[in-house]
Structure formats: C-alpha cells, structure tokens
C-alpha cells in the first residue's frame, strides 16, 4: 500500500472539559478529494487546527507522508506542504493582492512575481494586483486567499468551507480548480456544508458528530447511512 499523505490517528482535543474532537482517525491517499462533514460544532475546524498545528492535540498522532507532525509549529507544518484556507477569510488587508501572494514565497523574487501574476490571471483578477486586499469584494478576497495557499505549492490542501458565500459562477470556477489540483496529484480535504458540492466533488466523505467520526465512505453510501441521517436531522 502507498504511504498515506495524511494519517490522523486517534486524535483527541478538549477545551476546558468539553471534548471537541474525540479519537478521530482518518487516512488520506495521494491524489484524491476528501470531504469532511458534520453538524455545526461537530469538531471539523478543530480537527483542521490539529492537523495544521494551530492546536496541539491532547492525544493521538498526525502523520504527514509517514512523518509525525503533531506538536510542530504551524509554519513548520505549512512548509512541509500543507496549505489551508479559513472559514472566515484571512487575507492580509493592508497588503496588495500581489503582495499577499509574495509574502508566502521564497527564492528569486522575479519568479515569485511571475507565478503570482499567473495565478491572479488564472482566477481572472490580474487587474486588481495592486489593490489592497482589504478593499476587494468578498469573492475576490476568497480567490486571493485560495491562490495564496497555492503559492506555497502544497501537496495536501485543506479547505474550510470553500463554497460559503460564493456565487454560482465563482463556485464552478473554484470546483474546477480543485479538480485540477487533484489531477496534478495533490490531495484535498474540504469541510463543506453544501451537500451538492460535497457529493459532486469528493471521492470519500468522513462524517463527524460531537467530535466523533460516525461514518466514512463514498458519498452515495454516506447519504443513506442511518447514523448520518440521525446526526443531521435528529430523531
């Protein structure tokens, strides 16, 4: 078997007595798109934060390409090839769109600028390169955040609600881009509430409820899983 890109093993995290993530395990194979769903407060973002080093898990392990990364600082993990976007957009408002991309790069500046302009062109906002990111529209900021993540050339991509607040056209472009990333051999894990997006995009879906993983499988199977239905609609 191939070494998984990401192996989360029995991760636990609690805040002041409240268990946010309870012994969750996931395995992600390279070049696939995975979905992470669950009701509000089921621990999806906390799990993301444990993977990216923004929270230190209370127990369990996180392995990236077979190497342990739990407990490492977020910037170390990011530099090992993990890129993410946030549920609430986090661009650097007083940096221009292009500067937002440049800050995450190393190596020759010329090349970085070329690459940045390419990506701005790719998402069709090249004309806004010198605009402060804080002045851009919501959708444009979302794009900047997305391509900023791409600037780091991540092999594992974590997207926190990429479809939220995005109009149809933009959404289709984004989904197309995500498929493109998969085809380049990158692995994508996305948290999403829009079931259409999840079902249309993901090969495997994990379901969290109250911090526990209650189901895992292809979208079609998940949709008819008793426990999942119960978690979402109650009984």
């Amino acid at each position: 078997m191939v070494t998984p890109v990401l192996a989360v093993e029995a991760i636990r995290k609690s805040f002041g007595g409240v268990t946010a993530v309870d012994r969750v395990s996931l395995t992600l194979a390279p070049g696939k798109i995975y979905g992470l769903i669950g009701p509000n407060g089921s621990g999806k973002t906390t799990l993301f934060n444990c993977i990216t080093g923004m929270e230190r898990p209370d127990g369990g392990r996180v392995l990236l390409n077979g190497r342990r990364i739990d407990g490492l600082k977020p910037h170390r993990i990011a530099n090992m090839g993990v890129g993410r976007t946030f549920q609430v957009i986090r661009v650097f408002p007083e940096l221009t769109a292009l500067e937002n991309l440049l800050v995450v790069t190393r190596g020759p500046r010329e090349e970085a600028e070329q690459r940045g302009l390419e990506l701005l062109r790719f998402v069709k906002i090249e004309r806004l390169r010198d605009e402060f990111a804080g002045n851009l529209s919501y959708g444009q900021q979302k794009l900047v955040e997305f391509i900023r993540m791409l600037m780091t050339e991540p092999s594992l991509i974590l997207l926190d609600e990429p479809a939220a607040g995005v109009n149809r056209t933009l959404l289709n472009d984004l989904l197309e881009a995500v498929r493109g990333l998969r085809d380049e051999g990158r692995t994508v894990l996305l948290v999403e509430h829009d079931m259409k997006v999840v079902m249309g995009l993901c090969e495997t879906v994990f379901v969290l409820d109250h911090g526990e993983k209650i189901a895992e499988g292809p979208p079609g199977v998940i949709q008819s899983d008793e426990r999942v239905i119960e978690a979402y609609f109650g009984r």
Partner: protein
Amino acid sequence: MSGRGRMFVAGLAVLVLVLAVYPSFGSGYGVRSMLQLFMWMALAGSWNLISGLTGYVSFGHVAFFGAGSYTAAILITKAGWPWLAASLAGGLGACVLALLIGYPCLRLKGPYFAIAMLGLNEVLRALVSYFEGLTGGGLGLSLPTLQATVPVYYVMGLTAIGVTALTYVIITSRFGLRLMTIREDEVAAEAMGIDTFRHKLYAFLLSAVGPGIVGGLAARDQGYIEPISVFPLAMTITMIVMVLFGGKGTVWGPVLGAATLFIFQELVWAQFIYLHQLLFGAIIIGVVLLMPRGVLGLLQMKYRLPRTI
C-alpha cells in the same frame, strides 16, 4: 523612475549635501540642534521597525538607548576605547539586550511583549545602580573631556540615514512584507508558513541597534551619564509620538514626525515644559482615535502612493 521620484531623490541629495557642509557655517546651537534632530530620527525610525511594521508595541525602547550609553561610556572610561568604536559596540550591546528580552517575550502574542518592555526600564535602572563598580551607580560616569560635537554630528547624521535606508530596504523586501503580515493577521501568517517568531525577533534586534549607537554617541556628546538621564520614560514616549504622528509602518513617517515634533518642541513647547507629557498623551490618544495611520499613512491611502513613502 518617475519624474516626481527623480525630483524627490534630487531634493534629498541637495538636503544631505547642505547638512554635510552645515557645521562649517552653522552656529554651535544650530549644529547641536541638528545633532539632536538626527538622534530623534534614528530613534523614531528604529521604534517604527518593530512596532510600526509588526504591530508589537515597545514601551521601553529607551532601554536600548541606555544600554548603548552605558556600554559606550564604560568602554571609553574603563577600557580607553575611542568613542566611535565604543558607540558601535553600544549598538551591539543593545542588540544583545534585545535578544535576551525578545527571546522569551516575542514567542507569545499580544501584550506580553508590551508590558515586558514597560518594566524593562525600571529593572535596568536598578541594575545600573547595583553594579556601582562598573557604572558609577547613582553618581553616574564622567567621560574624559573631548570636543567632538562636529564629528558626533556626522556620525549621528549617518546613523539617522542608516536607519532610514534600512527601513526602505526592509519595507520594499518580502521580509518587510512578512513583518507586516504579523501586524495584519499573525495566525494566518503562521498558517502560511511564515516563521513569525523569527521575523519578530529579527525586526526587534534590528530596531535595537540604532538606539544603541545613538545612546553611545549621546553619552560622548554629553560627557556625563547617570541612570536617570539615559533611561527616561519620556524618551520612549517621544519616539512613539513622532512615529504615530508621521505615520507608522512607512519609510518617511518617522523622519517627518521627528522633524515636526522636534521643531515644535524647540519653538513653541519650550515655554510649556510642564505640559509636555499631557500634550504627548493627548497626541497619542488623538492619533489613535482619529488618524491611526498618521500623516503619511493618510496621504498614502488617499492618493494611492507607493509603499516607499
């Protein structure tokens, strides 16, 4: 380079030239005033490097001035160093102090650093008084008499230029942009692979060098130092006011702020010396509430001026 840019550079060159020959015709008072102004430019510019760019407020930057003063004065009086070398060593001494403080305090976010810097002054004053053998304690240290105002004027001027040039280089580099990401959103910066701790620490070390050198030069120029004269809280306040007024996070903001406030101080406020702190407090409150970007920051946003302003 645009026409306006070229004119700016030409104007700057003329100004530097005039200042370079100024001691040959200026009055003693004039030269001394300019020397002071250079000192404030270097101090304000240095504070801007850490606080203006990263948003980490240093409430005790005068500590580096004092550390530089004592390093230089001790080297001059006890080891017979020439003042220029001693002042440069003052910059190094300040840098070492910054490392000692920055390493524990910059690993954390938020107010820890600010408060640690607030307390630093008191501690240094206590330490200086304790190590009497080296520092002369409360009595202070007298440096051998030497008429060096004009050479100190030049070195002070070069330090001010050096700090401003350093700011320019940093702000136009990706390193500088990364420092700003710490101010904008430190969590996101970390998640995007930026080692924020290391960036803050580097900025802090760089911001300590200028005040250290300037402290050494000031010690030479005054000929006498004591704990109270080299660790005044008022000096930190003045630096902060200058940068806030001129525009934090810009290249020329500290220069503009230093020049404006210094001239005002000399001409107008000298009569109201008792009101100084109150005025400074009011300026800080006013700028924070009404004009958080300062004069140049405001112009920059309004007229879409480049970063290098």
